[in-house]
């Protein structure tokens, strides 16, 4: 039985494939993304305030290491089997080493619908996993470490929209005390509804990407389905090693399986303008995102429950 929120994603794909012109203003899409990032951070901060874990620093280091290793799995597959050049292989590897906030939001919604507990500090892990893959992808693409300069770090680490919003909201949720409660009717109660609308838009975009798959896209489809399976299993392993709860293992798997299509494409556009952005977006948004939402996330939740029991 498919979840109602996820069903909106399917509705979007079907609508796009049928050619239905659903007007979805670009401003609304950006607002919904903003809402989701703030809500995720805020919820995490509120929950973290109630359950601070002393092992958080060790876990954070492990998560960053995970983020550094994932692109190193993707890159040889892209170079050897896909016969892609260094630039495109590095760019796509960066996408798959990073995370999708939308996929994470879907996983959280499904966990909450199933009353499956997860650790409160996961929004912190989402933030930590945004950056490392971008760095590794760039180094692999350029073949040297000189790409990581002060301007890059300032722009991508400090002033990155997703990171700033999520970290900021996390901090506000953590230190806000009782005053944060007046925000919960908006950011917490409305979360599922906003996510449903966001997924409708994602469905429309994914449907459009599917339509642009060209004749020789067999490699891209295969890679975009294999990589989330590999990343998800690696994330599951990490979750078990860190002794996370059932929900925590599932979320770590989902973070490993997901591919960025918001933060990383923007970073790649600036730092690797010669990379083929269409290929990365088609893979991460057109193939991996639907795969994760429809099959991957429910599977990893079931696996997390089995291992966490």
């Amino acid at each position, binding site marked *: 039985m498919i979840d109602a929120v996820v069903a909106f994603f399917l509705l979007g794909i079907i609508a796009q494939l049928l050619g239905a012109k659903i007007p979805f203003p670009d401003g609304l899409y950006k607002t919904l993304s903003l809402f989701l990032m703030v809500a995720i951070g805020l919820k995490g901060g509120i929950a973290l305030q109630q359950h601070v874990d002393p092992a958080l620093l060790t876990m954070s280091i492990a998560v960053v290491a995970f983020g550094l290793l994932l692109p190193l799995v993707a890159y040889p597959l892209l170079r050897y089997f896909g*016969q892609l050049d260094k630039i495109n292989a590095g760019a796509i590897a960066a996408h798959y080493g990073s995370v999708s906030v939308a996929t994470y939001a879907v996983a959280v919604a499904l966990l909450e619908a199933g009353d499956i507990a997860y650790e409160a500090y996961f929004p912190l892990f989402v933030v930590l996993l945004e950056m490392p893959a971008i760095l590794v992808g760039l180094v692999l693409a350029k073949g040297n470490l000189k790409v990581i300069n002060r301007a890059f770090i300032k722009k991508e680490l400090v002033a990155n929209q997703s990171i700033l919003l999520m970290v900021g909201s996390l901090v506000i949720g953590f230190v806000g005390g009782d005053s944060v409660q007046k925000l919960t009717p908006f950011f917490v109660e409305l979360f599922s509804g906003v996510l449903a609308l966001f997924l409708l838009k994602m469905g429309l975009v994914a449907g459009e990407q599917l339509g642009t798959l060209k004749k020789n896209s067999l490699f891209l489809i*295969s890679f975009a389905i294999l990589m989330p*399976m590999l990343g998800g299993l690696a994330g599951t392993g990490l979750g078990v090693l860190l002794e996370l709860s059932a929900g925590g293992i599932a979320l770590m798997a989902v973070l490993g399986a997901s591919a960025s299509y918001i933060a990383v494409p923007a970073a790649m556009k600036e730092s690797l303008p010669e990379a083929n952005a269409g290929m990365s977006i088609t893979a991460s948004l057109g193939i991996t995102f639907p795969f994760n939402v429809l099959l991957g996330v*429910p599977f990893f939740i079931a696996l997390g429950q089995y291992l966490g029991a």
Partner: protein
Amino acid sequence: MVVLVTIYFYLYFDFCKILKNTEERVMTFKSLALPLITCLSLLAFSYLSSVLGHGSTGFILLAISIFSFSIVSLIQSSRENHTLMRASSRQLKEAK
């Protein structure tokens, strides 16, 4: 699964007979190996999914789709090469 893999490799080796150049054969292998690995992974996931008491139909359908797509791709490439070879041998005969 054994039957599917056997069909896959039969078509692949049949296609390779047309490709005399080793480099072309290696490139063909590279382009078809990943779809096969993905299919097998999807089937493994479907098995794991059924063990967990979760639905496995989606994984199986996806595996069959990718497998079919790669077979079609192999056959299409084979036909294109056949056509090219016939055209070039015809040109050689006319030149003589």
